[in-house]
């Protein structure tokens, strides 16, 4: 019980509205003003999950979706509230496992985890890319395969570059956690998209749904395939943003949150 109640101390209560507002405002601006093909609507959720714990993270996600639905007309986000909850829950788990801790390392100690992490991401992503529907000649979005490869390469370069510049193996684990969160989020949101919206969401990513269906996927699998494309990318980027935010926050402030010390590790001696 104490484990639960300390996730809702006054400091966490002060953080949650801010996190919810950041989710909604950034998500709205990214999708509607900058019109980017990612969501970036779970930075606040993941931050709360990491600093305060899985239940607080899940609630932040769920409330963000519901308040977003009411605050801004015409968004199709409310029914996806359970997915946002799962993302917050997972963030709490990653924080507990110490994914966001800095791991200073050199040479083999640095590169071995990075290689293992990239391998893990490849294992995760390859079957998704190999979806036969993508390669159907009847309806191929020409930029599609190129886009997937470009993004995968960019993320890989990002992980390696960050690890090299910071002499820190943490970005590798942050990337794995982000990609895994994305895959799970995609699995959770596909049935909702399929049942509530007939598999489309009104965003630019609907072209992927169309392509997958033309390639022979059914309603559910087309929605799933679209999620498998968008979510791991989005959640990996979001995880990096959270990692950078945590690195920029004072350790003293972080330690005042219930899971803060556990999430970023003890003060370096």
């Amino acid at each position, binding site marked *: 019980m104490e484990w639960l109640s300390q996730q809702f101390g*006054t400091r966490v209560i002060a953080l949650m509205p801010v996190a919810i507002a950041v989710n909604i405002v950034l998500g709205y601006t990214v999708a509607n003003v900058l019109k980017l093909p990612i969501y970036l609507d779970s930075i606040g959720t993941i931050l709360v999950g990491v600093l305060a714990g899985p239940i607080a993270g899940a609630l932040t996600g769920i409330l963000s979706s519901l308040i977003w639905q009411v605050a801004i007309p015409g968004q199709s986000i409310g029914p996806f509230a359970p997915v946002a909850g799962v993302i917050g829950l997972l963030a709490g788990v990653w924080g507990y496992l110490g994914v966001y801790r800095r791991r200073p390392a050199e040479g083999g100690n640095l590169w071995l985890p990075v290689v293992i992490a990239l391998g893990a991401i490849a294992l995760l992503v390859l079957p998704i890319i190999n979806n036969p529907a993508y390669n159907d000649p009847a309806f191929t979005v020409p930029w599609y395969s190129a886009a997937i490869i470009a993004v995968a390469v960019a993320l890989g370069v990002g992980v390696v570059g960050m690890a090299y510049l910071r002499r820190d193996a943490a970005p590798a684990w942050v990337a794995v956690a982000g990609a895994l969160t994305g895959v799970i989020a995609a699995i959770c949101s596909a049935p909702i998209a399929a049942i509530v919206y007939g598999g489309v969401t009104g965003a630019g990513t609907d072209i992927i749904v169309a392509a997958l269906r033309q390639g022979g996927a059914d309603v559910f699998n087309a929605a799933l395939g679209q999620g498998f494309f968008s979510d791991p990318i989005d959640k990996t980027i979001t995880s990096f943003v959270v990692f950078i935010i945590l690195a920029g926050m004072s350790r*003293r402030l972080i330690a005042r949150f219930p899971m803060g010390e556990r999430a970023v590790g003890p003060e370096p001696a």
Partner: protein
Amino acid sequence: MSVEQALVLRGVRYRYAGADRFALDGVDLVVRPGEVVGVTGPSDAGKSTLCLVAAGLAPGTIAGVLEGSVTVDGIETRDQRPHEHAQQAGVLFQNPATQLSGTSRYVWEEVAFGPRNLGLPLGDVVARVEAALAALHIGHFGERDPARLSGGQGQLVALASVLAVGPRYLVLDEPTSQLDPQGTRLVGDALAGIADTGQTGIVLVEHKTDLLAALCSRVLVLGGGRGVREGPAAEVLADAGLHDLGVEPPSAVRLRARLAAAGVSVPEQAFAEAAA
């Protein structure tokens, strides 16, 4: 044994969790009801830490190690929970926007936030809100939107919401640092009004020594976490060594020094009146 009615810090040292040096390193301070004590010093002297400790937020809310004793009317703050302490010593910070709860449509409701948290009967809530608004002469703000107030007005509403919780002591952490001159005057006048009732003891932490000269009876100058000067306001603020301690003397004192350097002597009495 009769208990001293005062906010008392004795030999207070405070180290933030995760820090290796003491932000406060042996500070003594006594504030009685009706008294305004000014605290000043260069940045990093421990002014804000002093506020947190005196207001009972450290080490309860802000983790750290507290040595020495902090008592309010004889009760140790470390034995109290935050809401109990809030009813004895209230604290006001710099930024009006972050202090308002942001959940109220009207100023009246905003001021009622604290008393309602205490679960007081509705009649008591109303009485406290009206009293707090009246004490600051902002009864006419009641139906305004807290988000649409000027900085000075917002700070007055924040002060009223702290007063409504019912503390006998107020700790003010640079309450005018984000305000324009007009807002500063507004808050300064309100504080003078509270002090005049003789019911409330005020600790005013400020780097604006003009405000200290206008309001305080005594002044404590901090440096490196310790008190380096303490005494009657007029005396401490006129101290020629103030500038070397990293504190800008009040404008009246600077003017007098300039005049003296130019060979003009002005009777001390004129400055005492100007300061008051």
